[in-house]
Each structure stands twice: as structure tokens, then as C-alpha cells.
């Protein structure tokens, strides 16, 4: 099923471009970090998982916005599935990021391995609610004209990520103070985008740019732990 480009609005087209940019950044980073990944450290695995999660989110998001307003009958169902995957990826990314910054700040993989289930509890609750939304539509739904609508409980999606975000700030401060500034700028852009350009989805690209910044910061470190890897 091909999307009908004639019904794609400007804001939806903008989202597709932004998601395409996120995919470009993420694919480039996946290729670029392949050597470091072979070290197999916990933060390398978490970073790779974040790249893949954001890539899935960007692809689903882009497809959803392309399919919106489409007259094809399966489009509504595809958007619902796509948005469910996108929302789950959004929550999962936040969890992975919280674990990643914890590891980078404390370098204590044992504690993470022991306690990751407790960390993941808010994310698991979110996953259950997102899955339940597929049948009840209380967070978001797609009507018979294939138009996406926010449900009454839409903001529940943000609870777990916001919780992880708050927990992260202390650890980000420990890694590098400049990152806190960039973190706040990105949250401001994400929220500002939501207010001033509500039709444009900003999450995947904000995450992708954020990952690029973390990668730059890590690579700027004089040795980046090569001596441990080879």
C-alpha cells in the first residue's frame, strides 16, 4: 500500500523530512560506531539499543504521518500499530537512556544488572497502558477518515519518560555540565515544538541529535577506553 502524497499536509510533510533527517543521523552513527561496539561494554550495548530504538521510532513516525488522511482501509489500523510501536519506543528509549547515563556516571554495571527490573517498572506499566490503548483508545485513536486524535489519557505516555528524565539530570551533571544545558535546550525545543508546531513530530530527531552529542562527548575523551577493548 503506497501513501497518497496528495493528501499529505505541510506539517505532515515536515514531520516526514524531520524523521528522514533522524534516520540519516542514526544510520550514520550505527555505521560509525561499529568498531566501538565490538568492545561489548554495557554502555556500548545500551547506546546501540538506543540507536535502534530511535531508528524504529523515526521509521514508524514517518510512516504514520505519510499514511494520515489516506483513504485506504488498512491505513487506520497501520497507523494505530505504528503509533503503538512509536509510543513504546519512546518509553523504552527513556529507560535505556536512564540506564546509560547511570552507567557512564558510576561505571557500576553490577548494580544495574541487579536492579534494572526496579528501574524498568514505570516503563513496564507504560507498555501495558500503551498495549491496552490498542483496544480501548484512551491515549490516542484514529477515526474512520484516518485522522489521528489525542485521547483523554494521552499525557500518560509522558509519565515514565518524565520520571526517567528527572532521575537522569543528576547523572548527566556528573558526566558533563554542558550536557545538562543541551539536555534542557532539547527538552525546551521538544516542548516548544509541541506548542508552536503541534503538527510536527519532534521526538525522533531530538533523540537522534542528543545521541550524536553524547557520542561526540564520549569520543572527545582522550582514550575512550581503547586500552580495555584491544
Amino acid at each position, binding site marked *: 500500500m503506497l501513501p497518497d502524497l496528495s493528501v499529505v*499536509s*505541510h*506539517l505532515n*510533510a*515536515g514531520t516526514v*523530512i*524531520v524523521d*528522514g*533527517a533522524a534516520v*540519516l*543521523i542514526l544510520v*550514520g552513527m550505527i*555505521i*560509525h560506531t561499529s*568498531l566501538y561496539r*565490538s568492545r561489548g561494554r554495557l554502555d556500548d550495548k545500551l547506546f546501540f539499543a538506543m540507536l535502534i530504538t530511535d531508528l524504529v521510532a523515526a521509521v514508524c513516525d514517518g510512516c504514520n504521518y505519510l499514511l494520515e488522511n489516506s483513504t485506504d482501509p488498512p491505513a487506520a489500523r497501520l497507523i494505530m500499530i505504528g503509533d503503538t510501536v512509536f509510543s513504546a519506543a519512546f518509553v523504552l528509549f527513556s529507560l535505556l537512556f536512564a540506564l546509560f547515563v547511570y552507567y557512564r556516571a558510576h561505571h557500576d554495571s553490577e548494580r544495574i544488572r541487579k536492579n534494572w527490573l526496579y528501574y524498568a517498572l514505570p516503563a513496564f506499566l507504560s507498555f501495558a497502558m500503551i498495549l491496552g490503548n490498542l483496544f480501548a483508545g484512551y491515549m490516542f485513536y484514529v477515526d474512520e477518515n484516518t485522522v489521528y486524535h489525542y485521547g483523554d489519557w494521552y499525557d500518560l505516555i509522558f509519565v515514565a519518560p518524565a520520571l526517567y528524565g528527572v532521575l537522569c539530570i543528576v547523572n548527566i551533571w556528573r558526566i558533563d555540565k*554542558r550536557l545538562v*544545558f*543541551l539536555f534542557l*535546550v*532539547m527538552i525546551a*525545543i521538544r516542548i516548544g*515544538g509541541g506548542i*508552536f*508546531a503541534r*503538527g*510536527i513530530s*519532534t521526538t525522533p*530527531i531530538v533523540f537522534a*541529535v542528543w545521541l*550524536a*552529542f553524547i*557520542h*561526540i*562527548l564520549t*569520543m*572527545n575523551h582522550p*582514550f*575512550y577506553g*581503547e*586500552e580495555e*577493548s*584491544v
Partner: protein
Amino acid sequence: MILAEEAVVSVYLEVMALLIMLGLILLSRRIDLRRKLDSRVFLIMCLCVVADGLCSAFCYAMHYQNYPWGPTAVLIVRTLQEAAILLLVYHWSLFTNHKIHHSREHIDRIYPYLFIPISACMLFLVVNLFTGILFTISADDLCEATPLYYVMTAVEVFYFLQAVGMVLYYRRKGARLHFFHVTPVIIPTVIGALVNILTPYSAAALGCAIGLIFLYFSMIADWRFDDPETEQYNREYLLCVRALARDGRRDCRNILIFETDADPAVLAELLTHEIPRDGDLIHMGGGRFVLLLDQGDRSALELLELLVAEAVDEYNEAHPQEEISLKTEHHIRRADENVTAFLEANT
């Protein structure tokens, strides 16, 4: 101020570009300062993209606003934007030249010539402010280009492609450009330009910003493996080669080891004139160098050792006060020998 939807999209794309540039400028302050020219040119490129993004966002925000001062303001800002793009491609050309030749003298020699077409375009931009020979601004604050504007665009494209072509040409000739990848810079930049041309949205600055992210990745990799004393690879590069070999992404058939008690920078210069272009010369520290070769048999290695010995003799004859000693040995990998084991045993 109410913006049309396409203007909202364009402004948002510019904001994303500016966010990327903010992060790059902020985080790049810790970069290695040994290659100051690289860092400075990169920073100028970042600032050009920031100027391009800001100007473009302003111009899109002014579309259909119909303020009395609108067309004049858009004309001035659009002129600044074009100047920023010209400076961006000019510095991209300087950057690639420096990456290829690793020589400040080379840059000092060529940059005035490279600047001639750019300065001519700048002059046209100034003239355009009063005559509209390149572009004019309509009452709706939209830019209307003249045929001469496309000539200026062709100049920008020429600079961009010339730099890319040079990198590809010199890489084929064996220049030390292992970590300077232009493809990840080209792809987002070209896609951004195409989106600009084919759609009503402005994505050129975002494309350039993504290209600069990848360029920065390349720069860091390059710096990490650079030995400032000899201008060759450092010991970390060997660790990287070992990791690549372990992943099956790197071969190595021969290893040559050179040792001297004299200044390693002198020996490095002599070696660079004799060794094959595809060989990786690594300064291990002190007076010890390792040369990794993917090709060549025993006779080729012995010939190479002879050539290096002759070069050292010639140097010693010319500089009797600064004679350098040289000890060499070579190792050839057996057909059944594992590359990683070979590297670890002999380096």
C-alpha cells in the same frame, strides 16, 4: 505574526539545524588543539551554517507578512545568507585541502586564488542590493531569482564538488585519509539541497548541519590516531588496526620495524619518502616505528629496507653532525597465520 504552514515547517527545520550547531560548537571546545587550522576552519563552517539557518528562518518567517519594511529587510538578510553559503563552501574547500596536504604553507599559497571567484560573487551580492541583478524580493517578501543567480549557485556547487573530487583523487593516490570520509558529508548535504529545490521547505541548513556532525566524527577519529611529533599514526592506531583485524575488516601481510636513537621526526620524514603509499607508518614512541603493509613479498621488503638504508646513508653524509642510526627487521605473515595473532606477536 501568523505563519503559513510551509513557513512553520521551514522555521522548524532551521531550529533543528541551529540546535545541532549549538551542540557542535559547545562540545567541540574540548577538541585537540594541535591542529589549530582544522579546528578554526571547522568552527567558521559551523558559524556559516548558523548564519545560513538564522537568515533562512527569518526569510521564511517574513513570507506573506506584508510589513512595509519587509522586502528591504528580506533583501538584506537574504544577501547575508548567500554570503554565508559562499564562505561555507570556500572553507569546505580549504578544509579538504588541509586534510589532504597537512600543510599550512600549502593553504597559505592557495587560499588567495581560491578566494577570487568567491570575492567576485560577494561583489555581485553587494551590487545586487541596489540593482537586483541576482535576485529581487516581491511585495509578498518572496525571493525571485534571475539567471545570474544560478551562475552563483553553480560556483557554490563547483567548490563543493571540487573538494569532494580532490579527496577521492588523493585517496586513490594513497594519501593518508583513512578517517576522512566525505560520503557521510555529501549525502545529507545533497539531500538537504534537493529538498530545498523540490519542495517548498528549507532543509539546506539542516542537511549541512548533519554533514558537519559526520565531518566532526571523522575529525575526532583523525586526531585520535595522529602523532603530532612525527605527523604519522600513533600507537592508538595500531590498537584500532588490531580491533579491525579481529573483526575481519583489516588485512596485514608484512610488518617492517625501524628503530633509531636519533630524532624520530627526521626518520619519519625519510621513511615517508620511501615507503609505499598504501603502507601505514605508526610511531610507537621513542625512536620505534612500525610499518604495516598489505602487499609485497620478501624481495619487495628487502628492496624497501635497502632503499631506506640508502636514504639514511645519504642523510648522514649530508648531516655529519646529526648522524642517525637505523635498525630494521621484517616479519612476513604465513598463509595459514591469523592476522590478529601476527600483529600481536610482531608489533
